[in-house]
């Protein structure tokens, strides 16, 4: 599903150049649940952004669902993101101006669907995360766990093949964290590929396997 070969990525600021990822080779199979662990600053988010086509590698090759990612235009990259990837962020990143259901509809806006179809799909996704009763609330009116469940609904509403979750439980207490992880496992059982960054070994245990990073490099 996701294939990385010799992928490197560095960030240049005025003075220093940080090698965020150094020759990463990684294969994520379809239907797999992979955890990524490592200390802060080791490149986990960078890796996830590359997999989700939000960023491009400096070196190496990357392919998603068999499609090599090279010099596609912004439009076709956006399209691929829209169809194939669902993101869950550590700090939710819900749009505060929009209601819960409008937030969940965001990925559907960039497809050709009628507003009724969008509303139905969004309602269904919210049903899956158990938030049918909060459809027209604003994000600020929800608890942290509920907000992250909205984010999960938003990530799955477009039925992407890959879910990329960047510390989805990092800002939640353990009980709410477990709920989110239950959801991810359920989605994985339904055939979705899940890649999750986490600091928490307890969470990582629930994945099929764990990839460890240290200073931009893969360690065993």
């Amino acid at each position, binding site marked *: 599903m996701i294939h990385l070969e010799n992928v490197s990525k560095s960030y240049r600021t005025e003075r220093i150049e940080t090698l965020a990822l150094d020759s990463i080779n990684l294969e994520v199979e379809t239907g797999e649940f992979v955890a990524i662990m490592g200390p802060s600053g080791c490149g986990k988010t960078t890796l996830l*952004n590359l997999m*989700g086509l*939000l*960023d491009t590698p400096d070196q190496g090759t990357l392919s998603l669902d068999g499609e090599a990612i090279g010099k596609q235009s*912004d*439009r076709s990259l*956006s*399209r691929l*993101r*829209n*169809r194939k*990837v*669902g*993101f869950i*962020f550590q*700090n*939710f*990143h*819900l*749009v*505060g*101006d*929009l*209601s819960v259901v*409008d937030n969940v509809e*965001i*990925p559907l*806006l*960039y*497809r050709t669907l009628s*507003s009724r179809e969008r509303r139905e799909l969004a309602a269904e996704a919210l049903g899956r995360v158990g938030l049918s009763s909060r459809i027209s609330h604003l*994000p*600020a009116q929800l608890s942290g766990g509920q*907000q992250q469940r909205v984010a999960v609904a*938003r990530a799955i509403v*477009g039925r992407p093949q890959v879910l990329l979750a960047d510390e989805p439980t990092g*800002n939640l207490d353990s009980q709410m964290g477990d709920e989110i992880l239950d959801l991810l496992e359920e989605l994985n059982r339904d055939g979705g590929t899940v890649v999750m960054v986490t600091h928490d070994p307890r969470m990582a245990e629930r994945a099929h396997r764990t990839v460890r990073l240290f200073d931009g490099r893969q360690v065993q």
Partner: protein
Amino acid sequence: MIRKYVQLALKVLARRKFFTFISLFGISLTLLVLMVTTALLDHVFAPHPPEVHAGRTLGIYGVSVQSETGSGTGFLGYKVLDACARDLPGVEETSFFRLHGYVSLYRNGEKLRSFLKGTDASYWSILDFDLLEGRTFDATDFDQRRPVVVINRTTREKLFGRQSAVLGQSIEIDGRRFEIVGVVEDVPIVRIVAYSDLWVPYSTARNDDYQQQYRGDFMAILLAGSRADFPRIRAEFEARVAAMPPPDGFDVVRSGADTFFEFMSRQIFGDRMETSHAGRLRWLLTLLAFLFLLLPTLNLVNLNLSRILERASEIGVRRAFGASCGHLVVQFVIENVVLTLLGGLIGFLLSVLVLGVINRSGFIPYADFGVNLRVFLWGMLFAVVFGVLSGVFPAWRMARLDPVVSLKGSST
């Protein structure tokens, strides 16, 4: 697709009340000023009754004379018009009239200042006054020098009230009695050709001295068959004036037939009769409108740019879920257009109110400003131009934000 973005825009605007308020305030205020100004300009320059034929009317408004010692401009004397403005090729009807200026009328010992014009009979057929009572004067009145006067509604009401009959009554103007033959609707002061309180035949002047004057208080209007006749009318008139022997002590006499717009531009840019300034005035007005429009546009651009940071997370999220830069630009531009259209609507309603207040205040004599459809459409056009102008640059900046960076920010 558009509907989707419009709905989205309305939601965002409803949530961002402060931003929306500030923006709407700026836009509607600017549009208000713009609409009031255009209503004013429209009122001055566009054909309105009684100048219904303004589109094919040329006016002879002034004369400039030059000598070795200097030059001067002023109103024309009858002599020049009589010699040069009659029977011009392409002209259907010609009218001469003079601006006597303010005279005093007395009613029950109380003084009333009124504007007096002396006209011929053609004046009443070229201009289409709204006749409320009686009649205007005709060629017979004029030729026989009958002391008749047409008054406007306000003068009638001030002198006689609304009820009693006025036709056949006489009033004393400048020590002579004139019989009132008609009452016409008031005309705003900005229409210098038609404006007055009292109109008498200029043939009733005490003596014929005016007929020998180069410079005086006369103007003329020429009703052409169509605008296409303007060039040859002008050329012929100018040639005739140039061929006239100049008055004693002067070398050159120049006059020209102008549209009212050209006349106004001459007033603004200088008084020489030989060059037209209409292009410059049009250009200046356009520039002023543009600069004026730039203010709220820049303000809105500024507001929008300052919101980029605030919306960074949203931009990152949308990018992550498949929005292309194009999608984002469209979204933000539509947000701005919706905002400015709303502002336009509010500005429009405000200008209806304000123009109504100006009309009723009597601040400008006999003003009758209306927000007509043309002005409204102009206003709306401005609003959209606004929206696009103030939306594109911030939108482009927003869309170009790196999603990776914008997603780094704090949570909602």
